[in-house]
């Protein structure tokens, strides 16, 4: 139990990283009604560009340059691909954004190769900040935690305390009326898309040197993002935050405290023989179950509450 704080910290960190990706995805859906399957590709691009800029000008330059560059790229992406899609035409949305994700994955491989690139944690950020239960919590992980919480605070402040937040909130329910009040929603959507993509890119810049930068990093994280925005409720930022944190903590805890069915099975039926159903049952444990847990959660939520925990409308 002495490692509990370590588990909580790392679970929160993982959850906040997921949130940085899910926030943009859910906000873009709320504003534009488009489910962007290429969203995680911008996270991957952020990691690759973060690596490239760090080679040229150092890590810190990447923290600033990459989100800006990706934000602009996001606007182009939206204007060229997304804005042409009708909200009702979800098959086209899926095909176009999924295709874009594949193009980005291939492009990344052409430029940077198919193997992991050597993107490292900056020198001044190496080392431990403090020790919990005999394990170090690295400065760099703390740095990501701080940045992600700051970012969350800024997003929250903008949405709750400014006129922009009012416009976004109004546009999610009645976009036509917002236009009829003189707002250029295309411009607003450009900004939202740019911001969502920039935040995902920033997550890539920060997570790349922690988790490795390689061409399948987008497609590995995409399913988790969809679980988060669907369970949280499409368009709901609060939902995304809560579910992202919950997933981070659940995944971490299930892997750390490996609970196995074996003692129970043995106690009930005696030691199972190899190859029997009981043996399979005994092999069940929370660690190997952890990767499936998010999808199970999604299934249950969709059955009970199709709009997600905090969603305004059904899927």
């Amino acid at each position, binding site marked *: 139990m002495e490692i509990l704080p370590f588990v909580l910290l790392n679970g929160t960190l993982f959850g906040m990283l997921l949130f940085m990706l899910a926030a943009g995805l859910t906000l873009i859906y709320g504003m534009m009604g488009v489910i962007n399957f290429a969203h995680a590709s911008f996270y991957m691009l952020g990691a690759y560009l973060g690596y490239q800029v760090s080679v040229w000008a150092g890590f810190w330059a990447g923290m600033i340059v990459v989100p800006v560059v990706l934000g602009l790229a996001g606007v182009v992406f939206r204007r060229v691909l997304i804005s042409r899609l009708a909200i009702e035409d979800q098959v086209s949305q899926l095909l176009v954004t999924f295709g874009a994700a594949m193009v980005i994955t291939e492009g990344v491989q052409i430029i940077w190769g198919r193997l992991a690139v050597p993107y490292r944690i900056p020198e001044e950020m190496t080392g431990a900040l403090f020790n919990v239960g005999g394990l170090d919590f*690295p400065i760099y992980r703390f740095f990501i935690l701080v940045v992600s919480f700051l970012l969350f605070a800024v997003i929250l402040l903008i949405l709750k305390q400014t006129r922009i937040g009012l416009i976004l909130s109004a546009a999610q329910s009645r976009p036509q009326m917002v236009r009829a009040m003189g707002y250029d929603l295309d411009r607003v959507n450009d900004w939202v898309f740019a911001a969502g993509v920039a935040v995902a890119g920033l997550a890539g810049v920060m997570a790349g040197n922690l988790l490795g930068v390689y061409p399948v990093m987008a497609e590995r994280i995409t399913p988790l993002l969809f679980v988060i925005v669907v369970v949280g409720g499409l368009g709901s930022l609060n939902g995304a935050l809560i579910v992202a944190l919950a997933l981070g903590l659940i995944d971490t805890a299930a892997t750390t405290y490996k609970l196995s069915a074996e003692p129970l099975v043995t106690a009930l039926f005696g030691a199972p023989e190899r190859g029997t159903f009981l043996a399979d049952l005994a092999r069940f444990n929370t660690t190997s179950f952890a990767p499936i847990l998010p999808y199970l959660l999604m299934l249950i939520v969709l059955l009970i509450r199709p709009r997600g925990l905090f969603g305004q409308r059904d899927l």
Partner: protein
Amino acid sequence: MKIKSLLALALAGTTALATPALAEGTIKIAVIEPLSGPLAANGGDILERFQFLFGRVNDAGGVLGGQMFEVIGLDNGWDVEKTAQQMQRAADEGVDYVINGIGPQHATAITNFIRKHNRRNEGAEMAFLAHSAGDNAITTENCDYYQAVFDPTVEMKLNALISGMQELGIEGPVFTINPDFSFGQTVDASFKELAGKAGIEIVGSEMIAPFGQVQDFTPLVARIKASGAKVVMTGNFGPDLIRLLNASVDSGLDVRFAALYGPDPSTMAAVGADKFEAAGVIAPFEYDENDTGGLPVLEELNVTYREVAKTSWGIDRYRMLVDGIVGAIEAAGDAEPKAAMGSIGGVKLTTAGGEGYVRVEDNQMVIPYFIIGVDKAAPATVLYKGDDIGFGWKTEKIIPAETMALAPTCKIEKP
């Protein structure tokens, strides 16, 4: 009819473009590997190395007083279906020897194809030279006259690792982490069995979903910490190994890593010298660039290959494979697989760690094996896409061939 013949011509044209027509009278070698798709970089590297190695043999006058080798690359796109198709193509082109190693399921497909083919095509037999043992029982269960493996089996490597660990005093309680698919399961089961015999305690073990599916390894780090393990043995590779090493070192976990895939250049580049050193990584490997054992051929390759390919030689078993088949052809006095494969068992091999050989019983290569450890000050550093990774390896221990040669479990029947 006209259209059909036009089509045939067009098809023939594309085939000719894809593979230069093979010349008459050469010994034909097909390297079947993924040359497209996610593993194209690895497959391409392998093809390049074999072209280089057989080129050296040809430059030195070929075999049997002037017969030349011809190497073609056939792309299987890491698709077993395509491997079978490319085998048919190789057979049509009159290929004598097929080389492959990425993905045990492909080796199985090749083995199956060759058995059928050789039964039906007497006088035009093909042979399979595997450069990786994988998890596949090519020599432990399915040994065959027409195949040879130029890589120690998983059991042999793990046996080397365990004796190395014992000799180096790295025995402490072990935590095993392996990828949850057939290869990792073989590694996990074999290691536990061998460790049990060696009296090494295993305090924890985990099979993880492979290929980057696990995002955060810190929960595992916490488990390792709680288990009291002093050594982590892992058969993970690529993003999984990168994340595991990063998470462990960043968390200040005080363990040493016995990592089968530690010497992979892209992993080394991504994790970096400091963390590799902090993790005390050791690995069983066939060769240590900084310890050529005074072999002139390795001194030469270390320099020339780097110049040609902008990559360090790094891997030596491909050379052993080429030496093995050349030796077998010379010994048989005949380049046809039917004759040469009868002489491949018993061929002697020169390696950096001393003499090795291909075992007669099952055509399994047996060589002295290196236990290598991180050396930040290594004079020759591994290169990665032309970049200096900044560190290399040193020999911690050489496991002699006698220790490597576990008793053969399969016996070849001569046709």
